[in-house]
């Protein structure tokens, strides 16, 4: 379906292509509506939902303000429990750490459970370079891997696919008899994945939460594949964004109530694996490696206005609630993280030069902010990123000490647009000039041909009738009736 890699720079074209695909838009609408309904039902049964959100936001704000201390505490306690903690400044370092671990142990058969951090660093591609591409074991991710695509949703990677498309993919790639029966397709996947689990010598996972107090990592999932990925192979490598650390084990009481309800509308995910060091019973992996991934995060932490971006617990609720995401899906964003959270995170991770369009790809309706379990003020952050984009500022504002040099270039300047807004401001701040300008517009309106030369008017009229300026504005009518 997709021919060339999508990027944020081509967002407008990507969106247009997505809208032309009726199968895609239908699948998205059904799926996002279902998730939004389930979420609403699940949170409706929690009387203290708003208090939970407030508490979660406060825990995250507290942690991010002291992230260095909590990361040191986490590292110390994870190490004490027998895990090996690695620090990766960027994607290349993180990939190299995993690759070297696999190489040194002669691991040949790798399995992986769903993880956005490993998507972010393109770990599969890095490992594939020396013939060690992991098999994805989350059903959705496995489908995506078979199709040679990328996930289009944070927690539902194959949300853009119908069961018919998945059936056809299985016929093509696995040689099964034609079917679009979800039960049958899932059973087929289970059989195939079992063989991979049994043979695997290294398992890779992400991390939902890392508890500083105990050095514990948590992986939440529904299929049991992450449980197997993190317990069957001799070596478990967990890639964890540094913002995933939380102070105390007791904080999980808050987050574990928020995350599943916000994401899938479940009260609890089917599995919550809590891993403190390698398996003490000697049944699980002999080694646990935790790769702490910075990759731009410490620069975001240093930017006080934008810092709350890192409070995200990757539940996907903002995607399901977003009318833009519901219309076009995740691939159109051209970035690993799609939807509202992607529109604020991607420009900060990769810079406004290449992702400067994303903060503008929103009607600022605020549905994302309403559903966010950690109360990230996404519309305000979109507005701040828009300001920085047009001001030619870099994001994040200040590189932190010791961080990798920033590659973030400012957004491309748009001199004509900037001039337009300067003129608008000069006109609009003066009632006399405003009156004169609107009088000219009234004249221009009499020449439909002239109006159509104006790009925004053409864009408006492509699908909508344009309103007409009133023959006499209110300000003239008011004076006219002599109050």
């Amino acid at each position, binding site marked *: 379906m997709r021919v060339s890699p999508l990027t944020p720079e081509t967002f407008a074209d990507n969106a247009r292509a997505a809208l032309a695909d009726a199968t895609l838009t239908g699948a998205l609408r059904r799926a996002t509506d279902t998730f939004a309904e389930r979420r609403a039902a699940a949170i409706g049964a929690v009387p203290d939902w708003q208090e939970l959100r407030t508490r979660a936001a406060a825990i995250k704000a507290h942690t991010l303000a002291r992230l260095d201390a909590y990361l040191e505490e986490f590292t110390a306690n994870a190490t004490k429990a027998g895990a090996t903690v690695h620090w990766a400044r960027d994607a290349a370092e993180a990939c190299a750490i995993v690759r070297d671990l696999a190489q040194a142990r002669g691991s040949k058969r790798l399995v992986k459970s769903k993880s956005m951090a490993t998507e972010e660093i393109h770990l599969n591609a890095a490992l594939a370079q020396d013939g060690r591409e992991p098999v994805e074991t989350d059903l959705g991710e496995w489908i995506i891997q078979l199709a040679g695509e990328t996930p289009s949703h944070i927690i539902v990677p194959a949300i853009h696919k119908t069961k018919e498309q998945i059936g056809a993919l299985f016929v093509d790639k696995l040689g099964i008899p034609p079917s679009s029966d979800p039960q049958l397709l899932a059973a087929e996947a289970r059989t195939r994945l079992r063989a991979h689990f049994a043979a695997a010598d290294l398992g890779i996972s992400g991390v939902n939460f890392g508890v500083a107090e105990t050095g514990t990592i948590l992986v939440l999932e529904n299929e049991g594949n992450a449980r197997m990925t993190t317990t069957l192979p001799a070596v478990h490598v967990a890639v964890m964004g540094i913002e995933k650390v939380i102070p105390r084990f007791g904080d999980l009481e808050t987050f574990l109530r928020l995350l599943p309800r916000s994401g899938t509308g479940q009260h609890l995910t089917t599995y919550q694996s809590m891993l403190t060091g390698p398996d003490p019973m000697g049944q699980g992996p002999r080694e646990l490696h935790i790769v702490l991934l910075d990759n731009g995060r410490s620069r975001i932490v240093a930017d006080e206005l934008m810092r709350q971006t890192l409070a995200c617990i990757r539940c996907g609720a903002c995607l399901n609630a977003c009318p833009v995401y519901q219309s076009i899906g995740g691939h159109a964003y051209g970035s690993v993280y799609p939807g509202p959270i992607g529109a604020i995170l991607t420009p900060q991770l990769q810079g406004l030069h290449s992702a400067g369009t994303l903060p503008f790809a929103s009607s600022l309706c605020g549905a994302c902010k309403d559903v966010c379990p950690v109360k990230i003020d996404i519309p305000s952050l979109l507005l701040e990123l828009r300001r920085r984009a047009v001001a030619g500022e870099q994001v994040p504002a200040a590189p932190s000490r010791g961080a990798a040099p920033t590659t973030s270039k400012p957004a491309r300047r748009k001199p004509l647009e900037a001039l337009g807004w300067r003129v608008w401001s000069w006109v609009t701040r003066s009632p006399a000039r405003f009156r004169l300008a609107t009088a000219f517009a009234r004249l221009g309106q009499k020449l439909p041909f002239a109006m159509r030369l104006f790009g*925004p008017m053409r864009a408006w009229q492509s699908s909508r009738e344009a309103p007409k300026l009133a023959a006499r504005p*209110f300000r003239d009518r008011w004076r006219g009736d002599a109050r």
Partner: protein
Amino acid sequence: MTRSVALFATCLGDQLWPEVVEATVAVLERAGCRVTFDPAQTCCAQPAFNSGYHDEAKAVARAFVEVFERADAVVAPSGSCTAMVHRYPELFRDEPDWRARAEAVAHKAFELSAFLVRELGVVDLGARLSARVAWHDACHALRELGVHDEPRRLLRAVAGLELVELRTGESCCGFGGTFAVKFPELSTAMLDHKLSGLDDRVDVLSAVDSSCLMQMRGRLQRQGSRVRAMHLAEILASR
């Protein structure tokens, strides 16, 4: 007690729909307010602010503050413009003097339906309209100002009016200011989804924001629909 109200017509209301602004005046007067209009006003500055041009927005916002800071209450037939005024303190976060003046204005800026119901305690304005009316929750009114029940209560008090909810609930109409012309296809897809929630028997689609109505009316007209888009103030002024 007679409340003195400084009317903010909004730039769109002033220039495109003076009849909506006149209806706003009529409704406020019927509710017992003394309405004034200062012709020095223009716009709330939201277009520049939402486009990222904060310096350009600030110049217009300062003019707004100067016009309205002596008013007792500022009322606008728009949730979005009112929400913008509520954002002024954030816009002036690095200018303490202007921030304080902006806060003072923000505290007394109200969207029409919220002002009528919350401030005046008025629900029944003696209006009459025989129509089946579908209500659109404008995003900024709903999510930034918490306006939800107020317009519904006002509409239920209108004689002859049947209020219905849209099947597409609280979803955005796809306007979003310059978003509507920067991404016209996407904006239209959101719009079509919103309008798909209208049932066949709806006569009027109403909202507190003229900008949402401009978007929805533009599409309804293009499609030759019989559904009329009417601002809440126009309905409340109907006799």
